[in-house]
């Protein structure tokens, strides 16, 4: 009997130990959980405050919470991208306003200088010609700066029509009568944005191609539009010109970078093109091989009803 009781006590003691250790384990898990939730809270409050690089705590105590963090990480990345785009646009637009303001203010004194030079009789002819040329160069810069900062309204319009509207300007620019082939998508390509600015892109890119083919015998330029199955509109402008040096490819979008002769290029053409494309949430891709030619592709999200239905 005594032995029986002794066994029971031993058994109860064993159970007690087991329960205690389970309790201990639960307490530990609870603490770990609390710690994890606290760190999560810290990270989300950082995100709320605008720090989209805040680090979300990894290795959650339970596997199920892994999903929570991974979804939150995706949200965080999207938010971060959205806000940095917004910030960039904001910065670009105030930069644009400043640049165009300066350019606008310079136009009057530049005109005054042209008049003074015109009536001057003391300067030697070659100095005078040089000065007139330099003032013309400054004028070109103000013109380029103003072209992308003009007040503008967004609308849905046909990319093909914008290309047609840019044609008279392109024709005046094409003084060497280079052959320009237009291969436009049959259906209208509706995109959302500022039609004038898209015309500016087309003009600037063709202008570059014309400059690049200056020394080429059978110069050819091809302007093409297509709609991809996923609803992306592609405008591509190719030439068989001199191409871009590999080491320059990274710099060509920088403002004032140019390899053209001083009187000719301002280094603002492609910069303006890039700014406009970014403003339109588009993508710019440049492929070029020295001595063979260049293809510039511009991609926009299509607002075509037909393609949206088909997709």
């Amino acid at each position, binding site marked *: 009997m005594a032995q029986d009781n002794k066994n029971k006590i031993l058994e109860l003691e064993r159970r007690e130990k087991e329960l205690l250790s389970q309790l201990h384990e639960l307490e530990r898990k609870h603490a770990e959980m609390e710690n994890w939730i606290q760190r999560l809270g810290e990270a989300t409050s950082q995100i709320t405050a605008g720090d989209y690089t805040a680090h979300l705590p990894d290795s959650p105590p339970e596997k199920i919470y892994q999903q929570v963090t991974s979804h939150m990480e995706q949200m965080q990345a999207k938010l971060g991208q959205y806000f940095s785009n917004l910030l960039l646009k904001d910065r670009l637009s105030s930069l644009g306003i400043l640049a165009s303001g300066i350019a606008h203010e310079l136009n009057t004194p*530049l005109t005054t200088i042209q008049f003074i030079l015109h009536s001057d009789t003391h300067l030697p002819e070659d100095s005078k010609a040089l000065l007139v040329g330099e003032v013309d160069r400054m004028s070109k810069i103000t013109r380029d700066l103003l072209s992308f900062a003009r007040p503008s309204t967004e609308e849905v319009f046909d990319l093909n029509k914008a290309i047609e509207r840019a044609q008279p300007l392109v024709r005046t620019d094409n003084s060497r009568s280079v052959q320009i082939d237009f291969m436009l998508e049959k259906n209208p390509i509706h995109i959302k944005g500022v039609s004038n600015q898209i015309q500016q892109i087309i003009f600037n890119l063709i202008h570059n191609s014309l400059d690049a083919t200056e020394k080429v015998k059978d110069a050819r330029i091809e302007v093409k539009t297509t709609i991809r199955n996923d609803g992306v509109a592609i405008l591509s402008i190719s030439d068989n010109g001199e191409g871009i040096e590999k080491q320059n490819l990274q710099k060509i979008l920088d403002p004032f970078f140019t390899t053209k002769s001083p009187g000719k290029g301002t280094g603002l053409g492609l910069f303006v093109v890039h700014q406009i494309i970014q403003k339109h949430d588009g993508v710019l891709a440049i492929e070029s091989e020295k001595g063979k030619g260049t293809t510039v592709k511009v991609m926009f999200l299509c607002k075509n009803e037909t393609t949206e239905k088909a997709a």
Partner: protein
Amino acid sequence: MAEILIIEDDIRLRAQIQKYLESKGHGVDFATDGKEGLESIQQIAYDVIVMDVKLPVMSGTEVLGEVAKTLPVHPPIIIITGHGDKDTAIKAVHFGAFDFIEKPFHPPTLDQSIQRAITEKKQDILAFKAYVSMPENKGLTEREKEVAFFAADGLSNEEIAERLSLGSETVKSHLKKIFKKLGVTNRVSLLSKLRK
């Protein structure tokens, strides 16, 4: 050659344009704000008007609107503009401007536009001359009355300028306009006309 009115608020550019056009044989008057410009357009028979878009008191586009509203016919108006106002300039042509020139430009561009205006708008220029010569369409502006008053008092341009806190160039321009409106050629005949 032609009688030209320049409406431009930048004094340096205005002086250069004036010098250039005078060297081409034109007679040149100027106004420095939109309102003064409008009054001169309405009352003096100029052959051609050269006007900036961005002007104090009244913008160039407003002046064009008033010209269209108040005059049955008017001389050709050439708009000069900074690039940023290209859209405004195109609108100005719709409002009846003869031409627009974007700043910065070379002097001959302006001269060529003036020559074209004189040839192509000959009828308008003559019709407006006839309209302005009718006595009921003449009259001095308040500023011009003040200048005329002091001039009649025998004050020199510099003295008038000081009294009215104006530049002496501006006083000279006002006097030229007064002479034109009253049909006199010098101070002496202005005096006898005003005394009558």
